Every structure is written in structure tokens, then in C-alpha cells.
């Protein structure tokens, strides 16, 4: 078992650890954990619909809060980051020669992430603000 663990570590280490990519590696982990923890809760809150409209709408009213809306913006940010960075990882894994262009690919991924998030943040930020003012 200890051997298995050390093998996995070196699998990651050869690609990420100690390289500039360690930040994207860390963000990938943090966003991944955040998403799965939310998913655990989200399956349960959605399952409440099986107990009828009164129960389900009562659960949803807990989300009807500007601070929760900002948390949801964080969730969308995490999903978008994890997806785009995951595509980057997959591309480099399947086409190892791309490793030569890792810096350019990382910058392109980051720009795509920022470019995607700007309109989303504006729209969801406005929704949170509208709820705050309501």
C-alpha cells in the first residue's frame, strides 16, 4: 500500500510538482473538492422534490438569499475553472508534445477562464444585487 501511494505521488510529481503548473494543480484540487462537497448536498436538496411541492419549495427558499447567490457564483467559477483546466490536463496527457507549449497553453486556458467568467460574474452579480434590493 505504501508503494502504491508513492507511485501515485511520483505520477503527479513528474507533471506538476515544483513546476509553474503547481498552482493550477492546487486550484484543480480545491475546486474539485468544493464541487463534490456541493454535489453531496445538491443531490439531497433535489431529492426532496420526491416529497412534493411544499417540501421542495421550502428547501429552495433557503437558497433565496444574496449571500447564497454569491456562493453560487463561486460554484460556477469552480466548475468553469475545473473544466477548462481539466481540458488542458487531458490535452497534454494525450498529446505529450504539447508539453513544449505548456506556458502558452496555460496562459490561453487562464484567458479563456477569465473571458468566460466576466459575463457570468456580471449576470450573476446583478441577480444577487437585485435580490439584495428586493
Amino acid at each position, binding site marked *: 500500500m505504501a508503494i502504491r501511494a508513492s507511485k501515485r505521488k511520483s505520477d503527479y510529481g513528474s507533471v506538476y510538482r515544483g513546476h509553474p503548473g503547481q498552482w493550477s494543480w492546487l486550484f484543480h484540487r480545491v475546486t474539485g473538492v468544493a464541487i463534490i462537497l456541493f454535489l453531496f448536498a445538491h443531490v439531497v436538496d433535489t431529492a426532496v422534490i420526491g416529497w412534493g411541492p411544499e417540501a421542495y419549495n421550502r428547501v429552495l427558499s433557503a437558497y433565496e438569499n444574496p449571500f447564497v447567490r454569491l456562493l453560487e457564483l463561486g460554484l*460556477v467559477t469552480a466548475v468553469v475553472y475545473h473544466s477548462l483546466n481539466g481540458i488542458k490536463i487531458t490535452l497534454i496527457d494525450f498529446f505529450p508534445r504539447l508539453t513544449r507549449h505548456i506556458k502558452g497553453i496555460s496562459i490561453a486556458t487562464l484567458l479563456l477562464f477569465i473571458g468566460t467568467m466576466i459575463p457570468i460574474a456580471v449576470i450573476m452579480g446583478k441577480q444577487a444585487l437585485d435580490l439584495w434590493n428586493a
Partner: protein
Amino acid sequence: MMATTTEPTTSAPRGGGPPPSRDLRMGRERPLGGFELWAWLFMRISGLVLLILAVGHVLIMHIPGGGVSRIDFGFVATRWSSPFWQTWDWMLLSLALVHGINGLRNITLDHVERTGVRFAANMFFYVLGFTLFVLGTIIVVTFDPSKWPGAV
């Protein structure tokens, strides 16, 4: 799993492989390596599918029509009257749970050194994931809004 030191010499890796000093380790590793390779491949393929399913899901729910404010019992009932969205949500449920729990397994493998603690943590996630998979599947498949007349 805990093979004796005399066994692995018979199982040298195929295709050249690492130098003989690693053979001991590789021999014991091979069955796990096979699973690990499939798990590795699964993460990438499911990740590509989840790019559509998960990003699509959060954008559909949060962006148009005022975002999540428009979601209520009637919204979900209308949505799940379509087999397309039922299939979408069920695939999202299944793939995201397996992808996420395998991700957690990788994290415990990297950061939880004590095997007993790691086993317990993994088992907790497997049981939780399986339970949520069963719960979510039952709800998506059996949900029938006609049980509550006038609610939609």
C-alpha cells in the same frame, strides 16, 4: 496485495519497461496498475463529457430568465417531463459522483499516509456516493408530479 518477495521475479513488465531493480515493485503493482490506468482514462473521458453536462447545467440554471429565482417545483416537473433532461440529469449525477469520488480517492492516496485511515475515508466516500447515486436515480426515474394535482 501483500505479495511475498519471492514471487514478483516471474512477472517482468512487458514492452521493455523499467530496469530490473523496479521489477519487484512492478510485479506487485500490475493488477492495481490496470485498474489505475482505467481510472485515469475514466477521469479524462468523463471530464470531457462533464464539460458539456456540468457547465451546461450550471449555465442553464443560473444565467437565463433571472437565474435560479425561476426554479421551483413546477420548473423541475416540466423539465423532467422530457426524457432528454431526465437523461441529462441522470448522466450528470452518475458521472459527477464517480468522477468526484475517484478524485477524492486520488487525494486520500496523496495526502493520507496511514492506510487504515485512508481505507476508512475511501469507504465513507464510496458508501456516501453509492447512497446518493441510488437516491438520485430513484428520484429522477420515479418522479411523478401528477401525485400533487395542481402543483404544476
